[in-house]
């Protein structure tokens, strides 16, 4: 039983990582109907931004882990990624805005490949050790919890989980309650009508990309604290998984991305953890997870929380 609870915790923590990356994916899609395949690589740049900033910031605490330092690194990395996202949109996507969506999609893959190769050139190809910003350790569970004291929960796992929820709520607030959010939603319905209403579409789209990339930057730092090995290709696998999570939850739907991420993480973990008893080789983890994805999409083609949209002819 304890082992099962531990596996659930493992799954939730892995899922929170997918969810964190999926949030940015799904938000950009929700507004622009465009899958930004470079999202996973912006996530990588965020991690490396943190890697280079951290030593300077940690100097103020004599090289010791500090929560204030971690917060500063997190915010700086988010700002750098936001700027990167805005620049990418301006240089690569904006000139193609009136072209077919497929053109932009292929360009996004190009941007992704560019960032991966530039990363290998600039940061080196070998994995680097990401400095421990928060003094990560296992949480001591008080003795009165009985058998639960055997559980292993890391501070960083709780941190990722909490921040994912905070960002989820904040994002929901921005999209649903602010003027800019209203403009984003309007733009997603009809860009032409939105601009006729006096909205500057360029500003709204830049903001969307900035916000999405800032989320990727935050994910880069938080995940690197938990799994402190970073390399220029680190965005590939989580990028794909987060994309799947976003589709699973209903792409474009913000709570859906979080739900999809958590679900994918828990399923993967349980398949690996119980492969013996289920008689599934644990190497089939992805196969099982993606089979479930297909199954869910067969019955709910718009994803778990996605809405049906009617195409106007």
């Amino acid at each position, binding site marked *: 039983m304890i*082992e099962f609870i*531990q*596996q659930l915790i*493992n*799954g939730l*923590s*892995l899922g929170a*990582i997918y969810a964190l990356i999926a949030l940015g994916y799904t938000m950009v899609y929700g507004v622009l109907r465009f899958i930004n395949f470079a999202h996973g690589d912006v996530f990588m740049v965020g991690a490396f931004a943190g890697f280079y900033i951290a030593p300077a910031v940690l100097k103020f605490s004599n090289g010791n882990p500090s929560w204030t330092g971690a917060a500063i690194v997190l915010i700086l990395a988010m700002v750098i990624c936001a700027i990167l996202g805005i620049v990418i949109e301006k240089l690569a996507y904006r000139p193609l805005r009136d072209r077919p969506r497929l053109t932009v999609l292929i360009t996004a893959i190009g941007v992704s490949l560019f960032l991966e*190769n530039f990363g*290998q050139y600039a940061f080196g*190809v*070998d*994995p*680097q*050790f990401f400095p421990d910003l928060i003094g990560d350790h*296992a949480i001591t569970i008080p003795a009165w919890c009985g058998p639960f004291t055997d559980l*292993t929960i*890391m501070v960083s796992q709780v941190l990722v989980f909490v921040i994912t929820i905070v960002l989820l709520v904040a994002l929901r607030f921005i999209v649903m309650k602010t003027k800019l959010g209203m403009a984003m939603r309007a733009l997603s319905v009809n860009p032409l009508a939105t601009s006729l209403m006096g909205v500057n579409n360029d500003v709204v789209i830049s903001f969307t990309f900035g916000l999405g990339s800032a989320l990727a930057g935050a994910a880069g730092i938080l995940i690197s604290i938990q*799994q*402190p*090995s970073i*390399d220029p*290709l*680190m965005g*590939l*696998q989580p990028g794909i998984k987060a994309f799947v999570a976003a589709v699973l939850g209903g792409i474009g739907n913000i709570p859906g991305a979080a739900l999809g991420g958590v679900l994918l993480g828990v399923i*993967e*973990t*349980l398949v*690996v*953890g*119980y*492969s*013996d008893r289920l008689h599934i*080789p*644990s*190497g089939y*983890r*992805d196969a099982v997870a993606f089979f479930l994805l297909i199954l869910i999409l067969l019955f709910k083609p718009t994803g778990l929380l996605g809405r049906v949209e009617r195409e106007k002819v």
Partner: protein
Amino acid sequence: MLAALCLGTISALGQDKIEVGEYASLSGGNASFGQSSHNGIALAFDEINAAGGVLGKQIDLITEDDRSVAGEPSTIVRKLISQDHVIAILGEIASSKSLEAAPICQENKIPMISPGSTNEKVTQVGDYISRVCFIDPFQGKVMAKFAISKGWKNVAILTDVKQDYCVGLANAFRDSFTASGGAVVKNSTYSTGDKDFRAQLTDIKPTHPDAIFVPGYYGEVALIARQARQFGIKAPLLGGDGWVGESLLKVAGHALDGSYFSNHYSQDDPSPVIQSFVKTYQAKFGQVPDAMAALGYDAAKMLADAITRAGTTGEPQLRDAIAGTKNFKGVTGDITLDADRNAIKAAVILTIANGGFQFVQRVAP
């Protein structure tokens, strides 16, 4: 026929150069392997060229990067053979990559020497494929015997199912270990590129293994070690030559202290051959050569030696000269190729302590 055509083109192109191809993971997940072996090969050819080359000709090395991506080696090797008309090919370290390129070299009758692929199947592809390293049945046996000698009876195995090397080494270890009276208490797997191993470790922990055999590559092994210690698993980890990578200890920190792995050579070995190699390598590249660098160096030198003995770069003379390599004095030991063109030589066991690798023992074949 094809080889004859190729040779014809070469002699037409220029008499003064011997073109040798190399494919390696210079970037991507296994970049540490590719860069080390590439440096070793480049150093060897520089030395040979400085001393006048072979058969009076300079060796020209043409290197291509497969980016650690499956599918790339076949494209690259086809390019090396058909466009660059190389007479021989060196590469790769990762067995999955070598297994991709080997059939193409065999089909085109171009000798391929792998510096560090230890999976048994690599040279079974055909008589043009050889290697300068030992193979996994030997490496697995060395680690299994070592575990038994330490009194470890219950071992869990955690394998990377996407790598032929890891699967082969895990099987070799399992067979030898159970035959010697040990018990494998858990078989668990992961995939290349994974960063979260908590599910597997949660599954392994209640079996209380004396040691965990992790025959993976350095990138994943470092994170496995860290997460195992977070879960309070204190058992030492055991592994193979895939652990050798610059970032292993940087990422793992102290998590691997007291763990053991088998390797091709130790840079701390006082033998003069090794020490002089370490010195020249360090002077040129500013770092201590790891096992992959030493193997790359040996592969290049062994090829040059075979060309000299054959007196030609023509086939099948060169192929036979490579296969006939006997007591070749390499940095990683004396190399004699057996009937399957695998090098028969000793392995070393290293341990991790004080932030570095330490020599434990040498195991003869």
